[in-house]
C-alpha cells in the first residue's frame, strides 16, 4: 500500500505543478493570516503584560496600585513584614527622544525609550529588580554623576553614546537632560518590550522627571528563605490596609490580580478575530475546491485501482495522505509568511493600541509555541477535513461508475440543493436570533456572524446556479462565448458555487467592517462637531490625546500656554484607564476597565453641546452644576458605559483609586466615542486629589476674540513645540484626525481581509484551470469548427468574470447582513454604542466591480492555457 503513495499520489505533483502550487499557496496564505493575526494579538497582549512585569522577575509578590501607583512612604512598613527579604519600588515609563526637527514630519515617529526607575542604592532592592531581569551591573561611583542614567547597549549604540556623555528625553517638564553613567546588556522582558531601547534611572530622578513624585508604579517583594508566599501576602495586605493611603493597593503574585491586558484591546481584537475567522473559512473553501478537483480528475484511476482490488480504505488513505502532505507543506510556508506579515503589520498595531488603549512599542512580532503548533496543525487539518467530502463521494460509487470520467450530474444538483436548504435554515436561524436578542457578547456575536456567513456560503452555490440560469439567455445574446461560459458554470454548480462562496465571504467581510467604520464615522462626525469645540488642541508626543502621550506637568505647561499671545484659556485634560466596578439594577456585578476622563467639568457645560442621554434634572448644565456642588460624590459617565453595564442615573460606579474604592453617584450620561470601554468624567481637582496625579495628557485652548487660531497655533508650535514635544492642532484638523483614528482602528483587519480576497482569487484560478482541463475536448471541438483563440480565451475570461460578479453581488447582501449584526448587535451589546447602521454603498459597488475585474484577471492564465491547446490533441481528449 505504501508503495502506491509515491507513484499514485505524489507523481501527480510533478504532473500538475500548477494545481499543486495553487493549493499549497492557498493553504499557506490562509495559515499566514491566521498566524499573523494571532501573533499580533499575542505580541500586543504579551508586550503590554511585560511592561507590567519589567524588573519584577525576581519577585514572589507585587504590590500595585493601578493608575495611581504605590506611595513610597509605605516601603518601611512593607519591608518590616515577616518573611519579606526585600521590597523594591519600580517605575516604568515611556519617553520620546527629541529629533532634529521637532516640527518636521518625522517627529511623530521618533523612537520611544522605556525608562525604568529603580532604587539603585538599596542593594537588596537592586537585586530583586535589577538582578536577572534588567541585567544591570553597577559601579556605585557612577551614580555620583549629576542626573546619572544607565543605558542599555543597543540604545547607546544607536545614539552613539559613551559614558559621561549627556542625552535628552522628553519628560513632564519638557526636555530633560541625563548623563550616561554606565552601559549594560539588557535581558528579560525589559529588553523585549522596546527591543533594547532602555534607560535605567535612580528612582528619585525618574520620579522627578516623569512624576508623580512619591509614588512608584509597583513594589516587587522577594521572600526570605523558607518564607511562605501566602503568609507573607497576608501580612502585606494587613499592613497595606492599615496604612493611610494604602486602601487602594493590591498584593498578588506578579501578573495575577490585575485586569489582563488582553481585556483592554476591545475592538482591535474583535476586528482581528473576524479577519482570522474569515481567512479560515475562505481558505477552507479553496482547499475543498482544489481537493475535490483533484479527486474528480482521478476518478478513472481510482476506478482502475478499485477494479484491481484496492479497498476503499486503501484509496481513502492514499488520497488523504496526499492532502496531508499538501497541508503540511502549506502550513510550514504559511508559518513563515505569517511571521513576515505580522512583522509588517506590527507598526500599525503599535500605533492603534497606543492611540486607543495603552502605550505599546513592540519591535518584533513573536510567535509563541501555541501559535506555531496551531499554525502547523491548521493546514493539514484543513486539507484533510476539506478532502473528506470529495473522497467519500468518490469512493462510495462502484468501480464501474468511478471509471466514468464525470460524476453523475444529478447527484451534484441534489447536493447543491441540500446544502442550500441547510444554508437557508442557518440564515433564518441567525435572523431569528438577531431579532430576538438586543445585544450580543463577542463569542455570541462571532457565532451570529459565522451563522450568517456560513449560511450564505452554503446557499451561494444554489443561488449562483439559479442566477447563471437566468443570465444565460442574456449572455447568449452577447455571442456563443457568453453562453458557453454560463454553461461551464452550470455543469459544475458545486465547484463554481464554492468559488463564488469563498470570494463572497471574503468580500462580505470587508463590507461588514466597512459598514462598521462608516457607521462609526457618521456617529463620530456628528458627535465631534458637538463636543470638540476648542480652537486648538495640544498634546505631547502625539497629535491626538492618546494613551501614548508623554504626561506633562499640568500647571507648568498651562502657564506656559497662557503666556503665548492670543491664548485666552487652556484646560488641562487627564485620562487614564482605571478599573471600574458596576452593579446593574438586576444585580449583575461587572468589573472592567473604563477611561477616567478628568478635566474642568464646567467646561463641558459651558462650551460643548455634548448629547445627553440621561440626566438627574433633564439637562446638561443642571447636572454638571450638581456634580460641581459635590464633586467628591458625583460623576458623569458615557452612555456606552451605562448601556454596556446596565446602569444609569442614580446608580453608583466604583472606581479603583490609590485611596481605595471610590463610589460616586452617576448624575449624567452623555454620548462619547472616546473608548469602547466607556468613560467616567471626574472633575479635575477631584481627580488630582484622589489620584495624587498633577499631570495632563492634553490641553484644550481657546483664543482671544479676534485672534487668528492658525497664527496662535503657529506661535505655540514655534515657542513650545520643541520644548515639550508638543503637537498643536487646530480644530478642523483635529476633527479630521479623530476620523482617521476611527478608520485606523480597522486597518489591520482590512489588510488581513485583502489577503483573504487574494486567497479567494486563487480559488478562481484553480476552478478555471480545472474546468478548462475537463473541457479540453469541448474546447478542441470549438476550435475545430472555427473558434479563434480569442474566442476560447473570451469564454474562460467571461466565466471568471461571471464568478467575480456573482460573488460581488452576493457579497453586497452578505456584507449588509454581517455589518448590520456587527453594528446593531455586537458593537452595541459589547461596547454600548447605539449606532445607526450605515451601508457602505461606495465600497459595495467598487468591491463588486473590482471582484469582477480581478476574477477576470485571475482567469487570464487558465484562458491562455486553453487558447494554446493543440486542436488535434484536444479533440482526442487529454
Amino acid at each position, binding site marked *: 500500500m505504501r508503495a502506491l503513495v509515491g507513484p499514485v499520489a505524489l507523481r501527480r505533483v510533478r504532473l500538475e505543478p500548477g494545481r499543486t502550487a495553487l493549493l499549497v499557496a492557498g493553504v499557506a496564505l490562509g495559515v499566514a493570516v491566521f498566524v499573523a493575526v494571532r501573533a499580533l494579538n499575542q505580541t500586543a497582549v504579551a508586550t503590554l503584560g511585560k511592561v507590567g512585569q519589567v524588573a519584577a522577575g525576581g519577585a514572589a509578590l507585587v504590590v500595585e496600585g493601578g493608575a495611581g501607583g504605590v506611595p513610597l512612604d509605605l516601603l518601611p512598613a512593607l519591608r518590616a513584614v515577616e518573611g519579606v527579604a526585600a521590597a523594591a519600588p519600580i517605575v516604568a515609563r515611556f519617553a520620546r527622544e527629541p529629533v532634529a526637527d521637532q516640527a518636521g514630519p518625522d517627529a511623530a515617529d521618533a523612537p520611544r525609550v522605556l525608562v525604568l526607575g529603580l532604587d539603585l542604592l538599596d542593594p537588596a532592592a537592586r537585586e530583586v529588580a535589577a538582578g536577572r531581569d534588567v541585567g544591570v551591573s553597577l559601579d556605585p561611583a557612577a551614580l555620583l554623576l549629576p542626573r546619572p542614567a544607565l543605558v542599555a547597549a543597543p540604545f547607546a549604540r544607536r545614539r552613539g553614546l559613551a559614558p559621561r556623555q549627556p542625552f535628552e528625553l522628553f519628560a513632564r517638564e519638557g526636555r530633560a537632560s541625563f548623563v550616561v553613567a554606565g552601559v549594560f546588556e539588557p535581558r528579560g522582558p525589559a529588553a523585549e518590550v522596546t527591543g533594547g531601547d532602555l534607560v535605567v534611572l535612580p528612582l528619585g530622578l525618574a520620579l522627578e522627571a516623569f512624576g508623580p513624585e512619591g509614588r512608584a508604579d509597583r513594589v516587587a517583594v522577594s521572600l526570605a528563605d523558607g518564607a511562605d508566599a501566602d503568609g507573607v501576602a497576608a501580612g502585606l495586605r494587613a499592613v497595606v490596609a492599615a496604612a493611610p493611603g494604602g486602601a487602594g493597593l493590591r498584593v498578588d503574585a506578579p501578573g495575577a490580580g490585575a485586569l489582563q491586558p488582553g481585556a483592554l484591546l476591545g475592538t482591535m481584537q474583535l476586528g482581528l478575530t473576524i479577519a482570522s475567522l474569515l481567512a479560515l473559512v475562505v481558505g477552507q473553501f479553496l482547499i475543498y475546491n482544489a481537493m475535490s478537483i483533484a479527486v474528480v480528475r482521478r476518478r478513472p484511476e481510482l476506478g482502475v485501482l478499485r477494479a484491481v482490488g484496492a479497498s476503499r480504505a486503501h484509496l481513502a488513505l492514499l488520497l488523504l495522505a496526499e492532502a496531508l502532505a499538501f497541508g503540511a507543506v502549506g502550513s510550514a510556508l504559511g508559518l513563515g509568511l505569517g511571521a513576515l506579515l505580522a512583522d509588517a503589520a506590527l507598526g500599525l498595531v503599535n500605533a492603534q493600541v497606543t492611540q486607543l488603549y495603552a502605550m505599546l512599542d513592540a519591535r518584533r512580532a513573536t510567535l509563541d509555541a501555541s501559535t506555531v503548533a496551531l499554525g502547523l496543525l491548521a493546514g493539514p487539518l484543513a486539507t484533510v477535513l476539506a478532502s473528506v467530502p470529495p473522497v467519500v463521494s468518490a469512493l462510495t460509487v462502484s468501480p464501474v461508475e468511478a471509471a466514468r470520467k464525470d460524476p453523475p450530474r444529478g447527484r451534484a444538483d441534489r447536493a447543491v440543493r441540500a446544502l442550500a436548504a441547510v444554508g437557508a435554515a442557518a440564515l433564518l436561524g441567525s435572523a431569528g436570533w438577531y431579532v430576538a436578542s438586543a445585544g450580543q457578547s463577542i463569542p455570541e456575536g462571532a457565532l451570529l456572524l459565522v451563522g450568517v456567513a456560513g449560511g450564505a456560503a452554503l446557499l451561494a452555490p444554489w443561488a449562483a446556479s439559479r442566477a447563471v440560469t437566468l443570465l444565460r439567455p442574456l449572455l447568449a*445574446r452577447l*455571442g456563443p462565448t457568453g453562453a*458557453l461560459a454560463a454553461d461551464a458554470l452550470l455543469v459544475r454548480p458545486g465547484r463554481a458555487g464554492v468559488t463564488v462562496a469563498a470570494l463572497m465571504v471574503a468580500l462580505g467581510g470587508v463590507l461588514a467592517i466597512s459598514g462598521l467604520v462608516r457607521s462609526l464615522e457618521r456617529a463620530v462626525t456628528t458627535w465631534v462637531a458637538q463636543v470638540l469645540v476648542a480652537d486648538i488642541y495640544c498634546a505631547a508626543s502625539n497629535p491626538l490625546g492618546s494613551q501614548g502621550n508623554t504626561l506633562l506637568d499640568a500647571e507648568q505647561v498651562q502657564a506656559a500656554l497662557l503666556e503665548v499671545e492670543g491664548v485666552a484659556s487652556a484646560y488641562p485634560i487627564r485620562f487614564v484607564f482605571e478599573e471600574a466596578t458596576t452593579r446593574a439594577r438586576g444585580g449583575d456585578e461587572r468589573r472592567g476597565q473604563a477611561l477616567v476622563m478628568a478635566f474642568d467639568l464646567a467646561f463641558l457645560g459651558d462650551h460643548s453641546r455634548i448629547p445627553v442621554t440621561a440626566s438627574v434634572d433633564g439637562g446638561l448644565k443642571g447636572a454638571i452644576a450638581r456634580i460641581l456642588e459635590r464633586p467628591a460624590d458625583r460623576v458623569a459617565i458615557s452612555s456606552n458605559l451605562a448601556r454596556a453595564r446596565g446602569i444609569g442615573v442614580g446608580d453608583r460606579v466604583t472606581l479603583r483609586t490609590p485611596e481605595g474604592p471610590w463610589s460616586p453617584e452617576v448624575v449624567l450620561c452623555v454620548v462619547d466615542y472616546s473608548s469602547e470601554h466607556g468613560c467616567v468624567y471626574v472633575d479635575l481637582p477631584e481627580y488630582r486629589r484622589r489620584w495624587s496625579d498633577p499631570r495632563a495628557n492634553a490641553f484644550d485652548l481657546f483664543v482671544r476674540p479676534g485672534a487668528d487660531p492658525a497664527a496662535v497655533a503657529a506661535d505655540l508650535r514655534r515657542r513650545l513645540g520643541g520644548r515639550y514635544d508638543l503637537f498643536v492642532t487646530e480644530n478642523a484638523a483635529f476633527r479630521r484626525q479623530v476620523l482617521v483614528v476611527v478608520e485606523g482602528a480597522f486597518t489591520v483587519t482590512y489588510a488581513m481581509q485583502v489577503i483573504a480576497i487574494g486567497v479567494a482569487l486563487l480559488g478562481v484560478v484553480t476552478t478555471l484551470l480545472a474546468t478548462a482541463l475537463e473541457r479540453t475536448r469541448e474546447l478542441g471541438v470549438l476550435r*475545430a469548427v*472555427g473558434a*479563434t483563440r*480569442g474566442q476560447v480565451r473570451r469564454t474562460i475570461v467571461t466565466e471568471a468574470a461571471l464568478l467575480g460578479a456573482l460573488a460581488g453581488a452576493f457579497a453586497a447582501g452578505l456584507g449588509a447582513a454581517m455589518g448590520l449584526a456587527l453594528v446593531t448587535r455586537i458593537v452595541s451589546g459589547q461596547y454600548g454604542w447605539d449606532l445607526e447602521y450605515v451601508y457602505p454603498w461606495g465600497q459595495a459597488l467598487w468591491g463588486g466591480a473590482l471582484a469582477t475585474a480581478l476574477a477576470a484577471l485571475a482567469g487570464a492564465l487558465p484562458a491562455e492555457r486553453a487558447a494554446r491547446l493543440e*486542436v488535434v490533441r484536444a479533440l482526442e481528449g487529454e
Partner: protein
Amino acid sequence: MARVPPAVRLRQVTKVYAHSRVEVHALRGVDLDVEPGEMVAITGPSGSGKSTLLHVAGALDLPTAGELAVLGEDLRALSDDRLAAFRRRRLGFVFQFFNLLPTLSACENAALPLLLDGRGRREALARGAALLERVGLGDRLDHRPDELSGGQQQRVALARALAGDPALLLADEPTGNLDSEAGARVLDLLDEARRAQGLTVVLVTHDPGVAARADRVVRLKDGRVDQVTRPAQPGDAP
C-alpha cells in the same frame, strides 16, 4: 479549357510527431489530389495515418514538410485566426464520437460555426433549425445531446458541418460508432448534401460498404499511399 484546381492538393506531405522522446512518422510523403465535387474514402489499418491526413487537410494541424493547398489556399501561409475563419466558413467536420457540445441545444450546436462567425443569433439559429429540419430532426431543436441517440447526434453533427455552407467536408469514421441503419441514414444525408451543394468529401472509414459509396478509395499504409482504387459505380458498365 482551364483545368479547375483540385479541392485538396498534397505533395510529398510528411508529418512527424516529436512530442515525446520517440519521433513518430505519421505521414511519410503523401501525394493526393481531390477534385471538386469528388468523394474520396481513406482506408487503411489502424495507425496508418488516416486521421493525421484528415487533420492536415482540415487545417487542424500543419504538415511537417511538403506542399499543401486546400480550396486554393496555402494553409501554411495563414495565421491561426485566419485558419480558424477558414474552418468556420469553408470546411465542415464530422467526427466518430459526434463531439457535440453537451450544454448546447441541438439547434445551438448546429448553428455553432455561424454563432462563432458573429452572425446574428436569430439568423444563425434559424439556419440551424433549417438544417436540422433537413436531417430529419426538426422536432428536436431544443434537445441536448444527451437526450439524443447516437445516430441523431451524428445527424446534428452533420448539420453543424454543413452550417457554414462549406466547400469541403471532412469526416473521420462518421459511422464508426453507429449501427448500420443509423450509419446508412447519415451517409444518405451526406450524399444528398453532396448532390445539392456540389460538396467535396474526404471520409475516413474502415467499412468497405461505406468506402464503396466513394468515387475513389485511397488506402494508406505506414503513412504512405499504398493503393488507389475506384469502386464500381452504379452507372459503370458491368
